[in-house]
């Protein structure tokens, strides 16, 4: 799993490549924590190369959806693969995230 983080104007663009599972979720959290509550900054999670997510990954996403707006920013998930979207649908997460 690789994470790349880039700043683009007022938006933080985070791209996740690979699997987000119980093994590597701690690494993802470590990368994302410093940037997740920068006041007023929006965040886009580019999921185009996110191949797999388990409940550990969903937990971190939920945390982001609680924290980013809490700091005044908007969180958007983009380009999600259909298998990942299915997991979001199953868990009701599709209705609590902005998915583009």
């Amino acid at each position, binding site marked *: 799993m690789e994470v790349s983080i880039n700043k683009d104007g007022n938006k933080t663009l985070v791209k996740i490549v690979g699997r987000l*599972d*119980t*093994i590597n979720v701690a690494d993802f959290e470590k990368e994302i924590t410093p940037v997740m509550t920068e006041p007023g900054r929006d965040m886009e999670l580019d999921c185009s190369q996110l191949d*797999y997510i*388990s*409940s*550990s990954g*969903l*937990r971190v996403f*939920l*945390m982001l*959806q*609680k924290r980013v707006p809490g700091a005044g920013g908007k969180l958007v998930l983009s380009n999600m693969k*259909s*298998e990942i979207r*299915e*997991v979001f649908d*199953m*868990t*009701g997460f599709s*209705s*609590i995230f902005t998915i583009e």
Partner: protein
Amino acid sequence: MKRVLIIKNEITEISTLVAFIESIGEELGLPPALIMSLNLALEEAVSNIILYAYPKEFDKDISIEAVKENNALIFTITDTGVEFDPTKGGDVDITLTVEDRPIGGLGIFLIKKIMNEVEYKRVDDMNVFTLKKLLE
């Protein structure tokens, strides 16, 4: 088809589990989306055992057996850890707003959503967790 995998109670063993599921999927010619959901259900079940079944103990075994019986794929996960029924819980209210969604509880919820049947038994000193998926 019958395959058995024995892993240790270490989180890195999840990748061994992934390879096991992938090879079963290939052998049976299962569609990728189904392989992924089996992967997800098994990861949820096995990671719970790795994280909680053997508190402070290392080098303990967890066995995962996969059997194809008629049109069903049956996984039986066995461990000798603390007594724990993974089928309890998972009553997740998926209509709650983000503020009210608790962080936990999704693992067993996903298992129950993906698999057709789940069953837990305590046999002697072993937890035996059976997950069954009907194949199209």
